[in-house]
């Protein structure tokens, strides 16, 4: 009896063992198989080659440079670390091409390391690379500009390398299992790197510059922002001085001023005020006599010059007469002016797909009430010449100019081939308004009293006399400097507009002092290369 009890103890154990083994081996075998593979193989991700970025002429703006990398299987193998250090000078997992060749020749005798090739981002143009290309970080992830925007296309598909190891983390054989990575997609941009380099050379005398050059169709030829930085540093690493430079609070080299720099538009805004006033039915044909000062109740608003007789809004824009615009604004009042300005849709949102872009800002009555407790015609008078609270990005000013050139349709910017533009914004002003403003902008350059006569004069001198340019200067007062920002925005040729150019030079004086000559050089460059 008792022996039966004892034997049945073992028999039951036998049955339990069989049951457990059946569950583990037959039912859950696959799970344990995976766990065994996890033991047997150390898996490393293999980064794919990132897609190249080209300019419109096929020049490489961003490519991939070759480098080696050491995959560390066993961190504790001091012997081998010493051996590697003796071969390449010092122990590091990131290998220069030379170190890579040195080590890969001896790969078979390495027990705790695997040598693989790796591709890292390289920007051949260094700090001449346009800001909108952006940069990648040390891990190869797009962090700004197109690199971030198109990261999912550029990045490709990572592969894996499985290295067979034993329990002491030594490589047992060379039968690596490899899933090859696939290269990212190449991107062809609309940018012209030659133009970029040219803009860089002609703006070298200034500290902070933003330039937008685009076609009236919206193809962006160049977006230039000075000061610039070398995106390669984000891959290779910074020195302390370089790090301090890119993080400089006043220079802000990382900021793309053309889309993220907000400036008071100054007199360039008069383009929009004119359109608004004409649309509002204010008599734009009336002449005034400008004494250089305008009184609204007890407030006096100064003009930058005494313009004497100003025949109409056309002449007002040509001479950039502030008093005329004060008059228009005073007649409209703030509510009407803001209502008319909104029809431009310039302040509705962003123009580019970049996250870096900052929206232009125009206050509304609620904002005024919140800020000052009241609003009045005085705000409108200030607003009419692009001063006060209004802030615009250079790209928005370019949009405004392009819309006038196109008769209302904004040239939504395109940066790369295949970019889908879903928005089409049209300014809701009558065609006649655009004709009037276009004529006025033509006179700014070509008129007797125009503020940018320099351009016509130089074009005639340089043999481009038949090319007619239209534009508007601007001198934006700003709190940062006693000198105004120098702005100029233009389109040309006048009869059949093809290009829009907007130049903002910070703290460089009047529009005609810095921005106009820069624009002229760009126009002549474009005439040499695109006509």
């Amino acid at each position, binding site marked *: 009896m008792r022996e039966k009890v004892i034997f049945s103890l073992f028999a039951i154990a*036998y049955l339990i063992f069989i049951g457990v083994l059946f569950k583990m081996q037959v039912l859950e*075998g696959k799970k344990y198989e995976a766990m065994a593979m996890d033991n047997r193989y150390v898996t490393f991700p293999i980064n794919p080659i990132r897609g190249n970025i080209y300019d419109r002429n096929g020049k490489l703006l961003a490519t991939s440079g070759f480098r080696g990398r050491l995959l560390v299987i066993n961190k504790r193998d001091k012997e081998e670390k010493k051996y590697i250090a003796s071969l390449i000078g010092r122990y590091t997992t990131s290998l220069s091409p030379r170190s890579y060749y040195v080590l890969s020749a001896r790969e078979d005798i390495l027990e705790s390391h695997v040598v693989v090739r790796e591709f890292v981002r390289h920007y051949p143009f260094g700090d001449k690379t346009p800001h909108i290309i952006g940069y990648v970080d040390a891990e190869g992830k797009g962090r700004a500009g197109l690199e971030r925007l198109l990261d999912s296309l550029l990045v490709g598909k990572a592969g894996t390398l499985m290295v067979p190891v*034993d329990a002491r983390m030594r490589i*047992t054989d060379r039968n690596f299992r490899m899933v090859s990575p696939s290269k990212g997609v190449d991107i062809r941009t609309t940018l012209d790197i030659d133009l970029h380099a040219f803009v860089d050379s002609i703006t070298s005398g200034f500290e902070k510059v933003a330039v937008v050059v685009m076609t009236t169709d919206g193809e962006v030829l160049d977006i230039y922002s000075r000061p610039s930085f070398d995106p390669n540093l984000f891959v290779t690493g910074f020195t302390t001085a370089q790090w301090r430079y890119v993080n400089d609070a006043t220079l802000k080299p990382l900021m793309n001023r053309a889309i993220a720099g907000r400036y008071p538009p100054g007199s360039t805004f008069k383009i929009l005020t004119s359109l608004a006033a004409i649309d509002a039915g204010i008599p734009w044909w009336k002449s005034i006599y400008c004494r250089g000062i305008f009184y609204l109740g007890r407030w006096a608003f100064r003009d930058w010059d005494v313009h004497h007789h100003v025949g109409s809004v056309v002449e007002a824009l040509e001479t950039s007469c502030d008093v005329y615009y004060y008059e228009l604004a005073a007649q409209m009042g703030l509510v009407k002016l803001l209502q008319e300005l909104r029809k431009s849709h310039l302040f509705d949102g962003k123009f580019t797909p970049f996250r870096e872009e900052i929206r232009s800002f125009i206050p509304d009555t609620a904002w005024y009430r919140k800020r000052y407790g009241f609003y009045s015609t005085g705000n409108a008078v200030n607003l009419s010449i692009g001063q006060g609270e209004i802030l615009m990005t250079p790209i928005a000013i370019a949009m405004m100019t392009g819309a006038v050139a196109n008769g209302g349709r904004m040239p939504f910017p395109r940066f790369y081939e295949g970019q889908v533009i879903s928005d089409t914004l049209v300014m809701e002003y009558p065609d006649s308004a655009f004709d009037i403003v276009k004529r006025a902008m033509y006179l700014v350059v070509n008129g007797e009293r125009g503020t940018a006569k320099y351009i016509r004069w130089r074009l005639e001198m340089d043999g481009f006399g038949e090319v007619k340019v239209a534009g508007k200067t601007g001198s934006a007062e700003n709190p940062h400097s006693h000198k105004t920002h120098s702005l100029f925005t233009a389109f040309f040729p006048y009869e059949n507009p093809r290009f829009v150019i907007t130049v903002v030079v910070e703290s460089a004086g009047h529009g005609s002092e810095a921005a106009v000559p820069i624009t002229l050089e760009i126009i002549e460059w474009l005439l040499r290369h695109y006509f």
Partner: protein
Amino acid sequence: MVIAALLLTLIGIAEIYTISPALAYKQMVFLVVALFIGYLIKRFFDFSYVRTIYTPLLVITFALLILVLLFPSHGVRRWIDLGFFRFQPSELTKLLLPFTFYLYDPWMYMWRNFLVGAAAFFLILIEPDLGTAVSVAFVMYMMFFYSGVNIFLLLYPLFMGFAVLFSFNIKLFVLLIVVMMLTLYRLRARWYITVLFLVSALFLGMITPVIWNTALKPYQRARILAFLNPGKYRKSHAYQLYQARVAIGRGEILGEGWNKGTQKKYGFLPEAHTDFIFSSIAEDFGFVGVLVVLSLYLYILLYLFRGIMRHRYEDHRRFLMGVLLFYGYSFLINVGMNLGLLPTKGYPLSFVSYGGSHLIMDYILLFLALKSLEKAER
């Protein structure tokens, strides 16, 4: 039965060969020695000699057990180094205990048996070799049960052990008390026995958590905890357990094939030739292979069991039961440990694991059992 044992050993040698051919050759030598000794036993041994050799055996066993304590070899007080092979004196208890049962009925000579067992248990325990020590305790306990010792004497240590285990969980502890009281009621225990059980259990239940937190060394606690929760200690204490489970599981139905299992080949499975040889076999030969091994074991146990059932002499029955218990314990503990059902105690799988002492001793017991069964017919 000899064929079943030989098959097991040959499977073991084949498996050891994949880990280290040199060890496999040594194991073959051990097998030849074991079979030679077995032949001598079969040819010349008679159970009438037991009384003559018992006292020398007893003296030698304890002398050696004390000797290993005094002269450690390789830092562990477990083996006696004889140059070509390391002898493990605790294996002698496998011979000593069945002979003791043969000569002295545990029912009649309870204290004598108990003293021999307890002395061996403690000497082995402080080596320290928990697995073997527990094997002695297990065999003694089952043997007392087999020979019909007072049931309360057997139940008392059992319930007290559970009281210690369950003292950390009040629900389990209450359940234990209820089960204990019901069992005592069913067995019609006297009132003072019931009181003794109850008081002892409650006392242990209170004192154990205190001891746990103060007296036990951290590594001891860690080892117990690792058994209770294997997944959490993947790279530390439960590493062996985890890797054994992986090796067994990935064997699936037909196994990876001989010499193809990566778990043991590349050293992930520790002790693959000794304590964890079962996992190694499971990886190479899968569910089918494991089924064969377990069934061979059950066959040996069944053969001994049937021998016990029909043997005409009471003393031979006790001897055979001793043998059966040693084999059964090895089967129970080693396979249970490989499957992660029992804690890793480090006990070889009889006939299969690498190791000269235990292989030879297993065969000696086997042939003694065969010799005993010659006069079986009732």
